[in-house]
């Protein structure tokens, strides 16, 4: 049974895929589907409860929360995709280098990876953002760097395992140049694992961006970022709980969507890992 057939039979994974597609469309179509300008303020309507005019209510500045949640999709997905690319690119280069070079270079790189992985979750990203300063781009970089060590380890492991297989040995013996070896034999074998990792990474990246923005160290106002929206809503939590809680729901849905797709892909593409978390 092919990967797609297996994926399709998993209803939760399909639900996740639908959600991801909806999120993607929302991000692309934001200007057309948002009922209001996300930056439009209306101070007389500040903290308006959800109702006919503002479906999800209005925030501290009377801005429409629904429109801001819709625009927030752009920030979340953009930071997620770009940081995933950074993590994949960095991890591929370092992992391939370590795997193919071996010796002291491999040992040094893997020691460094271990040290980076020893950082408790969030703390490495915090340290990087602390140094870079806040902002959307710096958040993306921090989240991306946070992902590099794990990708490096996956890629190196795959390279080491594949280097020993007969068909790579045969291709080598036949005199295939390194670049060919990489493209024709090694890359296709690493790809499924990386796709799974990248999808699950998206979920974590969205969470991390939201967390950094919530702390005030990520995306800066007035950009509509979900984490930032939760953070501003926190100040009025006791008088207008919807301001903080509604954007948090968006984060949860997005993270859930990517987690579902990632789990489904893992079960479909890599049957050996099925059921292991």
């Amino acid at each position, binding site marked *: 049974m092919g990967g797609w057939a297996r994926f399709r039979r998993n209803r939760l994974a399909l639900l996740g895929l639908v959600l991801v597609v909806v999120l993607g469309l929302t991000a692309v179509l934001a200007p057309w589907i948002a009922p209001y300008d996300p930056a439009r303020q209306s101070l007389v309507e500040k903290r308006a409860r959800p109702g006919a005019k503002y479906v999800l209510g209005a925030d501290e500045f009377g801005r429409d929360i629904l429109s801001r949640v819709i625009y927030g999709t752009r920030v979340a997905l953009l930071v997620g995709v770009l940081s995933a690319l950074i993590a994949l690119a960095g991890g591929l280069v370092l992992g391939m280098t370590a795997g193919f070079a071996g010796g002291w270079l491999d040992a040094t790189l893997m020691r460094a990876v271990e*040290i980076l992985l020893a*950082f408790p979750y969030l703390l490495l990203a915090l340290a990087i953002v*602390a140094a870079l300063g806040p902002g959307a781009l710096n958040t993306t970089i921090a989240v991306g760097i946070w992902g590099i060590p794990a990708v490096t380890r996956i890629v190196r492991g795959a390279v080491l395992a594949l280097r020993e297989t007969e068909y790579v040995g045969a291709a080598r013996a036949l005199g295939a140049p390194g670049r060919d070896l990489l493209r024709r034999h090694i890359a296709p074998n690493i790809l499924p694992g990386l796709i799974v990792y990248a999808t699950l990474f998206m979920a974590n990246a969205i969470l991390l961006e939201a967390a950094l923005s919530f702390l005030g160290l990520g995306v800066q106002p007035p950009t509509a970022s979900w984490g930032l929206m939760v953070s501003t809503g926190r100040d009025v939590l006791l008088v207008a709980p919807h301001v903080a809680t509604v954007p948090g729901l968006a984060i949860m849905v997005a993270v859930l969507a990517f987690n579902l797709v990632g789990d489904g892909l893992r079960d479909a593409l890599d049957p050996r890992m099925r059921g292991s978390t």
Partner: protein
Amino acid sequence: MLTFVVRRLLLAIPVLLGVVFVVMLTIDLLPGDAVTLMLGEHATKDAVAKLREHLGLDKPFAVRYLDYVARVARGDLGRSIQQNRPVAAELADAWPATLELTVAALLIAAAFGIAAGVASAVWPNSLFDALARLGSLFGLSMPIFWTGLVLIVIFSLWLNWLPVGGAGSLSHLVLPAVTLALPSVAMLARMTRSAVLDVLREDYVRTARAKGVGEILVLARHALRNAFIPIVTLLGLQSGQLMGGAVLTETVFAWPGLGRLMVKAIFARDYVLLQGAVLVFALAFVIINLLVDLSYGLLDPRVARQG
């Protein structure tokens, strides 16, 4: 056993050196000079130079790194830039609160996560299993700072049962600890389920059942004891998650711990304090994982014999 502990502690030293190195290098390499940020854009060149010299930033990176490591080895973590207090004293004030929070969360996570996972594995595909798996999916997807706010709305605002924030009594601890524990409960429930399911498929479980051992004894004596190794490993890894989560939870609940101190340090551009806080977190992580490794010996006689 003792040699094992000593060897592991010695192995932790390069990791900690590396952590300090990475943090200092990150701060050093990336753009955005600490001093300019501290003094503002319009500071005179003279003032900048003076502060740089005062903080030792005029020396090359390698010198500063070795200097810092040498001082840390003597127990001197420097003085915080903002408060001008010894960093060690600031950290000493904050860490008990974080320890209290994370230990409480870890206990909640272990109790509920393992119980739910075992129940899921014993009755796979039952209604409970379905609900538990759905619940853990949500638990893994909820941003922790948001969970905290939702719990505040429900238990403080609507039900008026628990305080909104702060520390001091057990009732202050409940919401932050539960908030921090939830993702770990979810993770542990998932992991425990698959670990116990794997063990229940083993031959020795079938043998035990075949010779008439009761189902509860099969679980307690055979299944759980063997499933505990992956579970304990995950518990150790979760402690790292908990420390990161503590930064967010402490911010949400105004909990006076290391996480909040660290965020404050970042906002105040207090790199000396930040370095100290990261070092404490990393040290705690190393110690916890050492304890995890040691516990293998207790859980698995095979490991104990080798050790």
